[in-house]
Structures are given as C-alpha cells and as structure tokens.
C-alpha cells in the first residue's frame, strides 16, 4: 500500500527530502543482499509505498506534496533530489508562495490555510490518484514556525475531512528548549491541541535529543541541520520501511499506517509517540562494532523505562515498580528519575538473525499501565533485511510518558507568557482570540493529566 507524504514549511521540507533520500538509498543497498526473493519483495514494497514511476524507466518520483509559503526551501529540496539521480520529486507536486507565515501560527492557520486549501488539496488528490491502494497520509512539519505548524494543522484537518477513512500520521519536530523562535511555545500549544483532534497519531522528534545524538553518538563536531535531519530521516525510515508484521514475505504488503495505529493508539486520549533506536553511530564506528540482539534489547528496554533519549547516559537504577504498590508512589518521587510507564510499545527489528531476538523483556506487565490487558501492549515486527547499512537495528515506537516532561514544559512556558499577554496581539491580528488560546491550553492540560495518571 502507498503513503502520500505532505511536507510543510522549512523543517518539513528539509526533513522530507532526507527521508526519501535514505529510503531510496536503502532500497539500492538492499539489492546487494543474499536472499533474493526476500530483498525483491522488500524493495518492491518500499517502492510502492513511497514512489511512483510514471514511465517505467524514469527515476521514480516521491509520492509527496511539498508545501511552503516561501520559495527558497522548496526549490532547494527539488534540486537536491534531482541531483541524487535515483529519485526525484514530481514535477508539479509543490505549492509555494512568496512570503512565509512569519512564525505566526494564526497566519498559517487562519489566513494561508483557507486561502490555499483548494490548490493544495488538488495536489494531494493527484498523488492519491496515483496510488493503487492508499494507506494514508504522513505529514512532516515543525511545531515552532508558522507555516508547518499553522498551515500544517489546517491541512491535517482538510485531509481528515476529505479522506475520513485514511490514516493520518503527523511527524512533528519539537523546538530546542533553549529557544529558537520566540513564540515557539505558543505555536506548539496551538498545533498540538488542534492536531489532537484530527490526527491519528503524532510522532515526535525533539531537536534537543537529536542534536545530542549527533554530538555524542555520531561524534559530529560542528552539527548542521542537515546532520540532524539525517538522523531523523534514519529513524523514520527504520519505522516506515517494509517490515513483516508476522512471518513470511507476503506480509510485507500490509497497511503500514493502519498497522501502526492499531498497535500504538488504543485510546484517543493518548496519541503522542516517541522513537528510540539502537545502535546509532557514525559510519566509521559502525564498521568496527559488533552487536548481539540480547545486548541491544537490554539497553533499549532500559532506555525506555528510565526516560533515556539515547544509549549514552542511561540510568540503570530505574526499575519497574513492584506489583501491588499503590500507583501514587509512581509520581510522587523525583520527576527526573521517575519510572516511565507505557501504554503500548512497538519493537521493530531489522537485520541479521532477527528471528532469534526475544521481545520477552518488553512484555513484562510491570512496564505498562494497569488497565491494559496483559500481552496486548507489546508488538514486534521483524525483517532479516538490514536497514541503511546497520547490520542489526532495533527501533522502539513508544506510547508512554516519554513526552510528558517536554509537553509540560512547553505548556508551562506558553502559559507564563500568556499570563502577561505578550505577543498575543500578533495572533489576534490574524483572527484567533484569547478564548482560542484558553481552549488550547485546556485541551493540553487534559492530555498532560491523562499521561501523568498512567
């Protein structure tokens, strides 16, 4: 089945371009591997999922719609893709205007959204018509800007209205905590609260986390957005590339977004997904490393329960609470070292000897909130095909309290600013009211409260 990707704003377009790049290259590399039928099935499935081929021998075009309110980023993305020689963007599959939304969510949502809805939805429809079978939509955007966040939110609502039966997965890039857009917390609050209504699941990448991964695991000295984006693209690829939901090659053909939602989002109050993967390292280090599945999974499990965002600096002291202890005990303790309670986890394993890997450690009921029926919370998908040159790679998609702290911090900061009404006039100018702000705050406090009480 196919996925139509919508890339919005500078961030969405820059990450989207890296994502298609990594997927394309992964498919090329996959060809060299041993089991021919298996790799062929993998490759074919990935191609169908992400690319369309107009004239057979042409380079494949990404099933993507590029949207930005200014032209510079999109023209770069299209040019970079064309230069790769192995994939490209569709000729008329982009929409841009002359000036950006100026980091103003209301400008993107209330002005650009309604004004350009028709044109953008037409581009989307054209991509949809090229799909034999549509799994759904994957949108990429930042929370902090104006176009990705405001217009992205608006377009997600349009997709929901026009394609009520398709799945929508929103990938959002969380701004650096130390600040890079001054109204980032307002824009994030407005985006998340609205997405919560129209999206099926929100997959989060925190720039701070990825930045740390680049510094500490990839050993990059001067980190650029390109470096950050490559890591994000790698993580996304490791989730979105074909994988068997049960044994047997035929299973590559399942509905990728539908399967993801079914395993991860069991309740509409809980839609925030975090990603962890292991190993993650520079190409040179990778060449000299060997891993075992039990070792990888042991680390990954501890990363999950101890709120660790990457392999380095895991707190090994954190343990699941003993059964029978009252739930309150879990969140009275010091916030940092608190145990992370999960709702559901998805383990995606790729590479050598993958059948030998044992998910057992993730099945422990102590890891999950008590109201989940035992055994339903962990799912494992596997493929023997290695991803992006990693001989073994484990990715964990987690619906848990991992994002509680970042969310609480964004809402808290936005609320503080709102108390002084700073910058609010800039939003009112484009048609949202203080009441709209309050509604968004209320909606997110509800989400925070739900996740806290897991």
């Amino acid at each position, binding site marked *: 089945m196919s996925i139509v990707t919508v890339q919005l704003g*500078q961030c969405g377009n*820059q990450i989207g371009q890296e994502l298609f790049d990594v997927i394309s290259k992964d498919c090329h590399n996959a060809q060299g591997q041993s089991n021919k039928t298996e790799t062929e099935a993998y490759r074919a499935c990935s191609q169908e999922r992400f690319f369309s081929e107009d004239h057979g021998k042409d380079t494949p075009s990404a099933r993507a719609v590029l949207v930005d309110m*200014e*032209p*510079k*980023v999109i023209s*770069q993305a299209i040019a970079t893709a064309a230069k790769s020689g192995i994939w490209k963007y569709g000729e008329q599959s982009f929409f841009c205007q*002359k*000036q*950006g*939304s*100026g*980091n*103003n969510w209301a400008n993107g949502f209330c002005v650009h959204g309604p004004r350009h809805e028709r044109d953008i939805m037409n581009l989307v429809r054209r991509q949809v018509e090229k799909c034999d079978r549509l799994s759904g939509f994957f949108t990429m955007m930042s929370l902090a800007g*104006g176009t990705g966040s405001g217009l992205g939110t608006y377009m997600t609502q349009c997709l929901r209205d026009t394609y009520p039966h398709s799945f929508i997965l929103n990938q959002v890039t969380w701004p*650096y*905590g*130390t*600040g*890079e*857009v*001054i*109204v980032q917390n307002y824009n994030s609050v407005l985006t998340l609260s609205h997405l919560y209504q129209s999206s099926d699941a929100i997959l989060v990448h925190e720039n701070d986390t990825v*930045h740390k991964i*680049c*510094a500490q695991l990839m050993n*990059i*000295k*001067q*980190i*650029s*957005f*390109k470096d*950050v984006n490559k890591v994000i693209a790698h993580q996304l690829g490791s989730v979105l590339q074909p994988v068997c939901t049960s044994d047997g090659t035929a299973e590559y053909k399942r509905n990728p977004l539908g399967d993801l939602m079914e395993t991860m989002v069991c309740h509409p109050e809980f839609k925030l997904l975090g990603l962890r993967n292991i190993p993650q390292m520079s190409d040179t280090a990778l060449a000299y490393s060997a891993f075992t599945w039990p070792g990888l999974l042991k680390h990954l499990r501890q990363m999950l329960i101890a709120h660790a965002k990457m392999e380095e600096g895991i707190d090994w002291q954190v343990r699941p609470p003993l059964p029978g202890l009252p739930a309150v005990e879990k969140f009275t303790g010091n916030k940092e070292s608190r145990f992370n309670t999960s709702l559901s986890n998805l383990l995606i394993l790729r590479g050598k000897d993958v059948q030998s890997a044992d998910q057992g450690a993730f099945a422990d009921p102590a890891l999950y909130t008590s109201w989940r029926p035992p055994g339903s919370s962990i799912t494992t998908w596997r493929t023997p095909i290695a991803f992006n040159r990693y001989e073994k790679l484990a990715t964990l998609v987690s619906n848990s309290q991992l994002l509680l702290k970042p969310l609480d911090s964004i*809402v*808290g*900061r936005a*609320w*503080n*600013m*709102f*108390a*002084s009404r*700073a*910058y609010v*006039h*800039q939003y009112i100018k484009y048609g949202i009211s203080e009441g709209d702000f309050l509604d968004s*705050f*209320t909606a997110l*406090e*509800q989400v*925070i*409260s739900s996740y806290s*009480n897991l």
Partner: protein
Amino acid sequence: MTQSIVVQVGQCGNQVGCRFWDLALREHSSINKKGIYDDALSSFFRNVDTRAGDEDCSGLSGKKIQSLKARAVLIDMEEGVVNEMLKGPLGELFDSKQFITDVSGSGNNWAVGHKVYGSTYREQIVECLRKAAEQCDCLQCFFLIHSMGGGTGSGLGTLVLNILKDEFPEVYRIVTSVYPSAEDDVITSPYNSVLAMRELTEYADCVLPIENQALVDIANKIKLMSHSGKVGAIKQETAIISGQGGVSVQEKPFDAMNNIVANLLLSLTSSARFEGSLNMDLNEITMNLVPFPRLHYLVSSLTPLYTLADVNIPSRRLDQMFSDAFSKDHQLIHANPKHGLYLACALMVRGNVQVSDLRRNIERLKPSLSFVSWNQEGWKTGLCSIPPVGHSHSLLALANNTCVKPTFMELKERFMKLYKKKAHLHHYLDVDGMEQECFTEAVSSLSSLIQEYDQLDATKRLIMEDAPRLNIAV
C-alpha cells in the same frame, strides 16, 4: 520572493542610503557571477531594458541583467546630496521619477519638515511610493532611513511613516533612525528628536536606533587596529566601515559611519534574500522581537568588525564573534545590554556557522544576560549560508532590551533643558499647524515609553513565580 523599498529622507537618510546601494551592489556582484537577474537581486533591484524604452523586465527571473534600478524613493528638501548622488557612479540606479527634492531645506526644524513640506509634497510622495510599490509583485517591507536631529529626515521622514501606515497598512515599516550625539551641532536636535520619537512609537513596526557617537567609536576602533599593525593587517574590504570594492571612489566624511549602517541593513535582509538552513524572513522580525506594539526599539550589534588579511593568524575564534555581539562597545547605540533586561533577542548568522555553534553560544552567554520572567528562552535564530563579502561568517544581534532607556532619558533631559527656557520655540510655533500641544504630547509619549521600560526593569531582580496552571478535573 518578496521585495522591499528603501525610503531615504533628508541629508543623513540619503547619505546612508547611498552607501547602502553601493554595498548592496558589491554584495550581489560578488555572489552573482553570471550576470543573471535572480530572485535575490529582485528584492532590492528592478531589471530594466533601457534600449527597449525602459521596459521593466523584472518579472523575468533568470534573464540577463540589463540595467539595474534601485527600489528606492529619495526625498530631500535640499538638492545637494541627491544631486551629487545622481551625478556619481550610483546615478544610473535611479530615474527622475524616484526622487522628490526642494531647494531651501527645513532649517533643522521638525515643524517645517513635517507640517510645511508635509502638506506641500504629500500628494507627490504618495504618488512616488505607489509607483514604486506597483513595480513589486510582493512588497513586504519599507525601510525608512532618516536622522532624528535635523528637519527633513526627522519631520518629513516621520510624515512619510504616517503616509505608509495609511496607504500600505499591510506592508512592514522598519525604520533606521540616526540619533544625534550629545554634542551634536544642531542646537534644536533635542526638539526634533522628541517630536519624531512620538511618531516612531506610534507608527513604526520596529525601529533600529543608531547613535552617531557609537558609530564614531566603532570606526575609530577599527582605524586604530588597522594602523597599529599589532595583530596583523586587516583585510581592508572586510571592515564594516569600508566601502572598498564598491563603485564610489571618493570617500566622504560620513562614509565610514554610514557603511556600518549599510552593513546592518544588508545583514538584516540577508536571510530574506539568500538561502540558508534556517531562514529568517523580514516578517519574523516583528513577530519575534515585539511582544507589545509600542516597545519596538531594537538595539543592534554587528560582529566581527573586520577580518585579518593574514590567513596564517588563526581567525578570531567563532565564539568571540558571539561574545562581542553582547559587549557594550559593539552596540550601534551607547547601551549595555548586559545591564538591561532582555524582552527578546535575535541572532542572525551568516556564512559557515551551524546550529551547534548557535546552541553552544546561547548556552554559554545566557548566564551573563537577564531575560524577562515570561520569556526566559527568548531567542530567535536564523542561519543564512551566504556570508558578507570577504568574510567567512558574521553575526547581527538584535536586542529588545531595556538598555535603550538611558538614551531616551538623556534625550528627554536635553529636550527639557531647552523647553524650560522656551529656547527657539517660536521658530516652531510660527509654523502653520504647529501647536504647543505637539510638544507636550510628544514629551509625554516619551515619558510613558520610558515608564514602560522602567516597569519592566523593576521586575529584573524579583523572583517571579510561575503563573498558576489551569486545573483539570480528573
């Protein structure tokens, strides 16, 4: 891509403007080697085919450069400066429909500029602005350049600001205002400045105040450095006071200072013109830096001031560039941001600088700066990949900081000194439409602005509690 129009008013405005156009051409020609009219050029220049009867071919991006025309409106009530500019090598950039001049000047009297010439030339100014606006397919911003101390720039310049607000309410108005220094030769400059301030506070989207004394200090510092020869020779064209590599040969008295202001405008607009991994468009400036409409005065600093010629001497560390941007002797007004309270701060970086350099420096500098309680992480960042001519990297810092307050207080003091004695007042009150109230209202507008900064300053040493969060019934 969007376009901007520069409106230069008065002697100062036109002299600074002249330096801006020279350096803008220098910058574009160093990047645009093929002579193709591209989007970046289109933001400040039109492409006109002079052989085909001045046919405008700006709409055709990717066409060869024919003859470039500046998107500018030149206004002066004396013809000297504008005429000289037209005769010089930059003359070709302008045509006769782009300027409005008179012969007698405003006599350093705000009222003459604002009221007398204001009413005489209003129609003509509107006409001229409309014409320039029609030649843009997406006009984003007006840059008004003027001085506060004289009569034309200060008086007529702020009238132009009024006109812009009425005629083009959707287009941003960013004003570069040159403030007089304490020993300015214009005796009435405190009157003119305070009268102009009120208009700036009411009608500008944001103001970049520039103090002449600060420019002089920076220029002297660079000259000293280039003569001392201690650290090795400065690569001349990279100094922010230098016009080397531009088309103007002769150096005029204010040129060194005006080049600094021209560089400020080039950096401010770089990310709107050129690509980068984190663009900062012009409409993001006010959105990020102006939390309350009236508090829109931004203190700016440009670093580095120059680069060294000898490549064997390790270029001053990148981090030094960030540190300097916060030191008081790099600010374009006399102010110390480290003693003030930040409402917001933008770092616009050009060249070979990446997001990790930004993050590292923000974390490093943060402890030495105070931010208002509700905006503790009040940073805006932009990364443009094209550095200024001759540099590998550069930084423009814009601070919405209460440290502008002393400048305004001094100005008010100087105003009061004259006003108490009623010195020169009759020159103003004789002008038609100029009432005593103009003075009292202007000074009370300034007082209340100062008071607003005071109130923010007062929160500086308080520990502010977080606002109590909304309660959700479980």
